[in-house]
């Protein structure tokens, strides 16, 4: 069907595949075939996951549910008129950010595009500072100057939050370059959408990443739509990750509905980055339930049935919940308590944001230049600003 996300038409699970420890990074020749074969495979006992404790698994579940509840609350605030501009929700994609970030070490870094709430929270940012930023308040993570698309927390190795499609792909390359220059055994995860694969700087970046052996991992979160344009209408060739091939970059396609598969995929790419300083391109197939931004019409390019199919059969939080319950390591009550706390914290963050002050007009001129913020260390002379608040 024209416009239908490819993930909905793939073959049903192949029960023959129960081997757990196969690397999820495939050689170029057999990737497509093996990817289809991976559908339905149980990654919960794979190398990256087999040692997870109950607490760790619960924590991963908690992170996912917290991102969802935070965003659901932000949607309400948007509808109530507290949040302006764009609100690009990550709902449905949570396993990708949480699974990926959960694999990172101290010298690993993250950068992403404008659908950034999930990555920010997974990186350890707090509800309050994020919600307040959405409200445009002084207590926001960027003091109300960035908004939804521009969350930053460099102290948590989280470098934003970038509004222009594909514009972050060279920045992620630069983070990886700096890590290598400083002889750190780290990598940069650079998240992007399927639409960003059609921007030129991405290919310039792939060329440099491979040529200079930079430890950057491009993660194409393929949610099937570049805004309202289905992959079949925006991209030639399939899969998207295969575009890494002419650059001699290892690539793979995996499911983003399964947290454990995401973790294994990232683990393999990190190994390649840390040990051999090699880049990877990982296409992780996922789905967003909400519009590109929440005010956008949803029914012009996809059907309600399609969205329902994902919610019913492929929801990453439900899938993890079922697994944990089936494993018998948690009770429904424990999971409910986590959920109740997440909702409570989300409500509290909205109250915090609501009660917080807006930035003072004088703050419009802060944070533009390091130098004007540090007048005691000023080295320049002359006038920097030509129109300022009265």
């Amino acid at each position, binding site marked *: 069907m024209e416009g239908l996300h490819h993930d909905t038409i793939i073959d049903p699970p192949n029960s023959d595949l129960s081997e757990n420890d196969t690397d999820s990074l495939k050689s170029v020749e057999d990737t497509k075939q093996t990817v289809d074969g991976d559908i339905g495979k149980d990654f919960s006992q794979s190398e990256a996951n087999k040692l997870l404790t109950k607490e760790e698994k619960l924590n991963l579940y908690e992170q996912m549910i917290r991102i969802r509840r935070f965003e659901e609350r932000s949607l309400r605030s948007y509808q109530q008129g507290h949040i302006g501009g764009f609100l690009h929700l990550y709902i449905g994609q949570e396993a990708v950010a949480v699974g990926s970030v959960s694999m990172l070490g101290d010298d690993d870094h993250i*950068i992403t595009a404008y659908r950034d709430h999930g990555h920010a929270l997974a990186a350890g940012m707090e509800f309050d500072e994020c919600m307040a930023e959405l409200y445009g308040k002084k207590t*926001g*993570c*960027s*003091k*109300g*100057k*960035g908004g939804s698309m*521009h969350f*930053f*927390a*460099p102290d948590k190795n989280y*470098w*934003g*939050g*970038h*509004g*222009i499609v594909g*514009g972050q*792909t*060279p*920045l*992620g*390359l*630069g*983070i*990886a*370059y*700096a*890590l290598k*220059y*400083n002889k750190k055994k780290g990598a940069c995860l650079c998240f992007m959408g399927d639409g960003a694969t059609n921007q*030129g*700087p991405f290919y*310039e*970046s792939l*060329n*440099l990443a491979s*040529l200079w052996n930079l430890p950057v991992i491009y993660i194409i979160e393929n949610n099937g739509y570049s805004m309202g344009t289905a992959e079949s209408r925006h991209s030639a060739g399939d899969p998207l990750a295969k575009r890494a091939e002419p650059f001699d970059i290892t690539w793979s396609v995996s499911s983003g509905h399964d947290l454990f598969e995401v973790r294994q995929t990232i683990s393999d790419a990190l190994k390649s980055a840390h040990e051999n300083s090699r880049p990877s391109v990982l296409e992780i197939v996922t789905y967003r339930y909400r519009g590109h931004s929440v005010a956008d019409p949803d029914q012009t390019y996809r059907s309600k049935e399609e969205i329902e199919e994902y919610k019913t059969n492929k929801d990453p939080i439900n899938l993890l919940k079922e697994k944990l319950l089936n494993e018998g390591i948690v009770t429904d009550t424990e999971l409910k308590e986590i959920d109740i706390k997440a909702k409570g914290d989300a409500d509290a963050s909205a109250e915090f944001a609501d009660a917080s002050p807006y930035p003072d007009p004088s703050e419009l001129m*802060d*944070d*533009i*230049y*390091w*130098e004007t*913020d*540090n007048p005691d260390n000023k*080295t*320049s*002379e*002359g*006038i*920097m*600003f*030509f129109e300022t608040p009265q």
Partner: protein
Amino acid sequence: MAIITYREALNQALSEEIENDPNVVLMGEEVAQFKGSYKVSEGMLEKFGPDRVIDTPISEAAFSGLAVGAAMMGMRPVVEFMFWSFCYVAFDQIFNNAASIRYMSGGLINVPIVFRGPANGGTNVGATHSHTPENFAANTPGLKVICPATPADAKGMMKAAIRDNDPVCVMENTILYNMKGEVPEENDYIIPLGKANVLKEGKDMSIIAHGKAVHSSLQVAQTLEEKHNISAEVLDLRSIRPLDVDAIIATVKKTNRVLLVEENKPFCGVDSQVAFIIQDQAFDFLDAPIKRISAIDAPQAYSKALENIQIPDHDRILAKAMELV
């Protein structure tokens, strides 16, 4: 004091700062093995090795963005554009990322980076290679912009730019690369950004210019003095953002007549802002309307016959100056 070229002065500044700070690297097309397309980085690869002086593919968007990412991480990259005209394919990285990340992060992230290269017409290379984007860059809060016009300034201002904690766009000029001048040798020779320079004192009119237009203005000032008995003061702006407004107002108050000269195109060019500032802050000191001369308002022409009349030359500037008296 040694007499060296503008090109050698830049080379000294870059070399000294690479030696001073392990976070400084120079990257761009042909900067290393080829020794720089205009030989600015000649000898630097041999001196500092390929980790500090780095050849890039022809991918301005990627290497500009890479350098911004590295600057966010605390490095101090110097990015060479073979021509500033080529920054147009990296616009997003410079004008969105380098300029805005500090602001959008509420001051959490600094971007100490230098973008540098020649930005001038007059070399018979057609419209795509002759842009002068100092007005674009100066129109973008978050960026600083300088246009050094002499060898000494090239060194002192480049060093200041590299040590600066904000993104600085250094606009050089291929026609000035061979110009010779006295350049101090000390390692800490710094000319602060935002400090204009009176290159010739005068009392009858002020000619305010930046970049190569400074030199045509000096020639005109000499003609005015020798042939017309008019004493013109020449003020070199040096830096566009920050701008030395005090120096501009001081010269206007001294001479009461102003001619603005630039090789930028006229509409929304740098001197539009300078003219506004003068009438706003020194209107009562003006004895004549402000005169302005810029590049002829057409895409830069290839043919020498056309391009020679496009950029303000001695005769066109002189004619305009004579309208002031």
